[in-house]
């Protein structure tokens, strides 16, 4: 009977995971609670419930974004046979997805936690980390690139994998599409990156569902998010628009307090898309923009300086950039200053400064010597 209960509890946990992967957080919690009803103190069910409750605001935002992105990608191509240039119409979505990634990355400090028995590295590739976890746990080591997707029996036995989507190169499961189908560029091989500090960044999968992809096989300590988030309980978080707005606004406030301005900004934008008259969101948004712009200006330094591209074109292609970054890069001609480039960007000072500061940070551009 105990075995039977355990088996059913495992099934319920798996069903919960499936629901979670679809963004049905409340229903997932219900399943895990049912599992707890069968096996008291079921470790995974408890951990999952705790994790979802602690991170509800950010998770909801991420799922919402993922759903919008999926809708957008399903949109039919234009009538003339040529597809819409997604970069234009969906530029905002991409931006939002990028921001969502940051919100969740920044809200999820687990990825930088050292694991028991694993030598700490600056940042590890998810797959690399997973291999090490497997080895540490003494389980059958499964090569990361071919590890089975969530839902397989092997994964069931792991105490804490809250990774619900396949990693790069893994087969998808249950109709969940691989998130990153191609590396940057068309027909170009991904480079072999030996720098461990940059490896995780460059191997980073899609921006679309970033947080989920980047979540390593690590159990967050129970109290990890208590200071950062105080999300509403599943009961409180009803699916009404007002509640979503309140939840996101709270998340935005908290991220702002943490100094995670990008994440806070993105949540403010989401709030304003649902409630354009929301005064607090608008004020918070402006404040975030002001602080971020100041940060970008600091990174850029002297705006009258003339930037140059520091690396050859074939190396630029290795970076994960978008068409806007590509456009700004193409404006760099050794004559135009940062100020000029911002003027000619056509994307406003905030956005242009953000991209330029990113390019500087990546080492793609720098001051003319």
């Amino acid at each position, binding site marked *: 009977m105990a075995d039977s209960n355990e088996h059913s509890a495992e099934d319920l946990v798996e069903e919960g995971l499936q629901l979670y992967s679809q963004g049905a957080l409340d229903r997932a919690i219900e399943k895990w609670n049912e599992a707890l009803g069968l096996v008291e103190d079921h470790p995974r069910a408890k951990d999952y419930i705790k994790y979802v409750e602690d991170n509800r605001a950010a998770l909801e935002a991420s799922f919402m974004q993922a759903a919008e*992105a999926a809708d*957008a*990608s399903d*949109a039919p*191509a*234009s009538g*003339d*046979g*040529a*597809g*819409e*240039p*997604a*970069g*234009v119409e*969906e*530029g905002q979505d*991409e931006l939002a*997805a990028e921001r969502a990634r940051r919100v969740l990355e920044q809200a999820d400090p687990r990825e930088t936690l050292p694991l028991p028995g694993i030598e700490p590295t600056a940042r590890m590739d998810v797959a690399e980390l997973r291999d090490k976890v497997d080895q540490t746990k003494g389980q059958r080591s499964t090569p990361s690139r071919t590890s089975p997707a969530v839902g397989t029996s092997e994964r069931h036995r792991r105490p804490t994998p809250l990774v619900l989507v396949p990693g790069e190169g893994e087969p998808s499961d249950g109709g969940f599409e691989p998130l990153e*189908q*191609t590396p*940057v*560029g*068309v027909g*170009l091989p991904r480079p072999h990156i030996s720098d461990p500090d940059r490896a995780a960044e460059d191997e980073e999968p*899609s*921006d*679309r569902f970033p947080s989920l992809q980047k979540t390593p096989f690590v159990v967050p300590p129970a109290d990890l998010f208590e200071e950062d988030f105080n999300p509403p309980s599943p009961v409180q978080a009803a699916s009404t628009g007002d509640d979503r707005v309140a939840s996101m606004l709270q998340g935005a406030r908290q991220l702002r307090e943490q100094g995670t301005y990008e994440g806070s900004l993105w949540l403010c934008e989401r709030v304003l898309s649902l409630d354009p008259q929301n005064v607090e969101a608008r004020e918070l948004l402006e404040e975030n923009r002001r602080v971020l712009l100041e940060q970008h200006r600091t990174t850029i330094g*002297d705006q*009258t300086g003339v930037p140059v591209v520091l690396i050859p*074109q074939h190396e*630029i*292609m290795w970076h*994960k*950039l*978008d*068409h*806007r*970054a*590509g*456009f700004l*890069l*193409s*404006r760099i*001609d050794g*004559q*135009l200053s940062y100020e*000029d480039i911002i*003027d*000619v*960007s*056509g994307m*406003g*000072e905030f956005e242009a400064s953000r991209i330029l500061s990113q390019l500087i940070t990546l080492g793609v551009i720098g001051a003319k010597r």
Partner: protein
Amino acid sequence: MDKVIGIDLGTTNSCVAIVEDGTPLVIPNRGGYKTTPSMVAVAENGKRLVGHIAKRQAITNSENTVYAIKRLMGRRFNSPAVKASMETVPYTLVEGPNGDVRVRLRDREYSPAEVSSHILQEMRLIAEEYLGEEVQKAVVTVPAYFNDGQRQATKDAGRIAGLDVIRIINEPTAAALAYGFGKNIERKVAVYDLGGGTFDISILEIGNGVFEVISTAGDTFLGGEDFDKRIIDWLVFGFAKEHKIDLRKDKMALQRLKDVAEKAKCELSAVKETEINLPFIISTSRNDALHLQRGLTREKLEELTVDLVERTLLICKKTLREADIDRSELEDVILVGGQTRMPKVQEMVAEFFGLEPCKGVHPDEVVALGAAIQGSALVDEESDMLLLDVTPHSLGIMIVGGYFHKLIEQNTTVPTNKSHVFTTVKDNQTSVKILVLQGEAERAEENELLGEFILTGLRRAPRGEVEVEVTFDISADGIVSVSAKDMETGQEQSITVTATSGLTEDEIRRMIQENKDYLLELKESEEYEREKQAVEKVIDEVEKLFPEVEQTIAASDFGQDAVNKARIVLDRAKAAIAARDKQSVADSREALNRTLNMFKGVVAKTRLG
């Protein structure tokens, strides 16, 4: 002797030249280029962008970027040229208060002369930077077909830019001047001018230092940009075939395509194959950035554009036929305009005229050089060079039945004058109305009205008895005077046709003042930036030394006091920069330098000790 610059105010690019020590030379701009895009834009923050920088955002900010303003110079809003432009340009054209055309950029309207003045001013600044002195006089070139209003608009543009335009000359004349400079030649030549936006063919007769335009024609909507467009289309369709994405729908992608198409085209004038690389050209709905990589050969480019070259040759053929000139009469072909650097163009032109085009003059620079030569000759009293211009259009009056009677034919060398006797058309007619017209059409209303006046007090007599002599007089500056005289009484009425650009004198004065204010602001802003950079450098140095100095001297009261004072100096300087207060920034520099010297002294002492 005053410095006079020669400016080729082109539809797509402009160029400035000067004669130095008897040698004409083109002045490069700050970027080292000898031509500057004739583009003016207003950025999102209201900043005026001129030339190269305006071109770099011409498509992403297309509604607020003006190009090819030359096509609108001196035009009425309801003219066919304006209507044609309205269909092709992305910026907004509106009717001005005087029935002229205006361009709307963001929240302001600009006259074409005002926009051109920004370009002329840029050329002036380029020259001043090179010469290290102020430049006030200029010779500006215009197409041979420009009418008086268009020429006047060009003069007004110069005036707004703070330039005294001492002479307006025709572009082919300027090209021929540069071609004939230092040579004593007598021949008939063709000037084949394929620029960025227009094509002109002119036949000139050069002899004894006299340059006469015999005939001119062209297409104001055919130029190098059409060649670029063919490359863009080829790239766009290739990409669409592969990815099902139309890059033209993305402004950023289109801007990059435009830039790269022009670059590839220029490269293919020198090499046979080039690689087009546009990384991260567009992002897909799956957030993948796609790259565009394609090789383009000269052969392919020629295949894509050969019909455009053929179009120019058809115009050449028609012009020669209408002017009754045989190709064999021509002794040289001068190539003008960047597009003529394309080997296929040179080859087809050579084949058409049966002559190898002249290689002695640079097609991008030849017009500006000619203008500079003319400018130099005008202020040099010892110069014996004679430059004769021609009337771009026929001049005449309206006669009975609404017909146009030409007194001065098109392409007549100026200065000139001509008279003709007319009679009354009604019995007891006591007055005649003289309508002065310019153009080539038979019907008076299809030509441009330059002015009108009435001669009264004629003797009452049967029709045809009273004779009135009408005289047209055109000065070397192109000023047209018309008089009508009653042959019996000697009574006379006259009119001086003052060409107008559509701007009133008050408007011109206001624009001149605005331009002066703008230049002053620009100068102050540049001075502030220089000051700011200098101060920031010192701040940086002081801040680097701060920890070491603090550690060394802060232990004593005196030292602590010095450190506190240094901190105040730094804070004040930073506050001045934050406030963009030029004077405060400048004031903070001295105190900062003192602090830096003190810090350096402390550090040196510490390190030695």
